[in-house]
């Protein structure tokens, strides 16, 4: 069954969208018309330039509304997402205790030149994030937060040394997709390193990372901003348990 949808402003199905942008021209009636023409090309009608203001002698700022002529069949949308249920702190620990019977070793780091540990710390630090405890507090996890500016080679060495079950890589600050280069490089180095658990769960995270991207690069999961430690912990434990069972059944 198809479900056709459009953005909803005042009345269901009116298609109303708000946009704001800058045009590199002097503020003028022509500039205003140019903004309208842009929206027309984007498939908008009933266009209203709500605000036009000079930002400098050569740039103009706009706030514009328009009704889109496009629509989407919502039932046709398919995205990759994590299917595992999100457990709380106690349940994650219980599951590790019962199904795995030993502590899971989890290693986290910000790789490359990135010095911003806000993401990895939110997941690892005892205190956690948004009243959701961090990995360091999980009794059934051995959490190692290597923090910032860890080189890919260093990280891989540590993974072997610590016999890691899962690795979390964070990239916060990036420019011109440098983070993707680094994240892919990690997988390359990992492939060529003996002593890495074949079941190592590879996770990346950061404001520019989506789960879909992470899968395409070859990671097991990707987490965006606002992720709570228990979400990541739930994924790790489910993936580990599933992985373990599949190994057992193939023997």
């Amino acid at each position: 069954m198809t479900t056709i949808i459009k953005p909803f402003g005042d009345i269901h199905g009116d298609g109303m969208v708000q946009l704001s942008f800058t045009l590199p021209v002097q503020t003028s009636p022509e500039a205003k018309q140019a903004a309208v023409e842009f929206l027309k090309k984007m498939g908008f009608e009933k266009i209203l330039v709500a605000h036009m203001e000079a930002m400098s002698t050569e740039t103009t700022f706009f706030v514009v509304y328009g009704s889109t002529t496009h629509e989407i069949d919502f039932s046709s949308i398919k995205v990759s997402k994590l299917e595992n249920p999100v457990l709380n702190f106690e349940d994650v620990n219980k599951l590790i205790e019962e199904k795995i019977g030993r502590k899971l070793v989890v290693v986290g780091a910000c790789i490359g030149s990135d010095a911003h540990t806000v993401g990895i710390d939110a997941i690892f630090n005892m205190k956690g994030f948004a009243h959701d405890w961090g990995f360091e507090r999980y009794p059934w996890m051995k959490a190692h937060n290597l923090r910032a500016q860890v080189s890919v080679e260093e990280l891989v060495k540590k993974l072997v040394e610590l016999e890691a079950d899962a690795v979390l890589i964070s990239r916060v600050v990036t420019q011109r997709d440098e983070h993707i280069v680094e994240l892919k490089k990690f997988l390359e180095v990992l492939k060529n390193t003996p002593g890495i658990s074949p079941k190592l769960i590879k996770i990346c995270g950061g404001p520019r990372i989506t789960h879909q991207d992470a899968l395409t690069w070859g990671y097991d999961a990707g987490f965006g901003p606002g992720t709570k430690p228990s979400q990541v912990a739930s994924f790790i434990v489910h993936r580990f348990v599933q992985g373990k069972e599949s190994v057992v059944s193939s023997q």
Partner: protein
Amino acid sequence: MAKLNLDRDKVDTCRELAEGLVRPIQKYIEMHSTVSIERATLRLFGLTGASSDGPTPTPLTNLFVDKIDRYKLSLGAATWVAAAKIKNPKISFSEMAHKVAEGSLDINSLPEPSFEEIKQALKPGVDETIKMLDASRRHKEKMRGRFGYQWTPFRYLIVATGNIHEDVKQAVTCAQNGADIIAVIRSTAQSLLDYVPHGATTEGFGGTYATQENFKIMRQALDEVSEELNRYIRLCNYSSGLCMPEIAVMGAQENLDYLLNDAMYGILFRDINMKRTFVDQYFSRLIVARAGIGIQTGEDNYLTTAEAYENHHQVLASHFINEQFAKNAGLREEQMGLGHAFEMDPTIEDSFVYELAMAQLVRDVFPRHPIKYMPPTRHMTGDIFTSHVYDAMFNLVGVATKQVVQLLGMNTEAIHNPHLQDRFLGLKNANYIFNSARSLGDEIQFNPNGKLARRARSVVDNTLDFLKKIKEHGLMETIENGYFANMPRKRDGGRGLEGVFQKARRYCNPFMDILQPKERD
């Protein structure tokens, strides 16, 4: 005007404790030098070039210092500059440096001159440099006075395109819309480079390389726009990381107004070796003090990495420590832009009241210091509309508590490097609030035993306890144990320790001798 009726004895005790715990570090500092200090010394003599071969040119200062063997370097690079001068009095300094770099002049084979000989050989160069530092200070004083009074908080904006020419466009637009200070944020991890890149740069990651040429380009653009707007636009960059002293010299040479410069930031947040940082910050601050540059410290970072509500005492304790290190280097209070931030979890009940308490507390304790106030980042989500409200609350605290430098928040924080319109909206937000609440700070008083005043007093109490604990164990030990920002750093760990060396008894650095404050014991 003090508003919180703080226990002044407690505040004084905090200062005394900071003085005491910095003292042993200061002793260590005075016995050591670093490769970066020696390179900065060469820069003070006017050496700026770089070798032209290869894709990344190596600065002559690095080539020069690396050619001196470590035993000889412990006498100071100045000793060997003098030795080369004595051998060939006609040689220009840059000629000498090129010869040393190429290997046609072997510094290590020269005889060590006597102290008197060194002094005499270097005197013209040293005098000229001190004149340059004084001229830089006077020039900035003149420029600040020239266009009349500028209201504070100063509106501080960051540009960070990676391309200095693009940065200029952004900076000029900011200035036209009311910015008072432009900071060119550096390329990610420049602080970990043990050299300063050379020339104008058009590629960077998350920022633009701090190079002397880039400083010059931006300063010139801002001078032009200052004339056009009849308002002095100040320039800020970063003297932090492994090249603190060298960037301080460049900042003086190119008339920068502010430099980010913190006695402990590099250790905690960049994993730079603590000995290296302590020794480097001192020399960089000697230069900054004389050249009339304002420093800005990085205590806001304590609040972005851990929950702000629980860490305000760490910020205040670090302020006292940074202040003491700065005093030791001869900085005036008017040059010490101690940093803090509006970073509390906005869902905490009365979080705004506590932010106001902290901001007022910092002003009460450091009334003459040009305090730098940083915007919310940690709890920004990507909902640009809510973020804009959050920035407005931050601006209101800034103007009501008379912060001096306000780094404007961006509604697209946590999304991308700000676009032109993000800065425009940030400025509109600040312009409106600073203007509409201009006298608010003079009009409000706080309930002497209310929630806000009690919060401020409890931060002072916690700061006092924290400083006592540090005093008990020593500053280096407490850093090793992760007292600051929960970030344990080993005294011999981190980057750059190999660049620290003990000064020989006959170590010579004519600049250090002149710039060192005299009255200290």
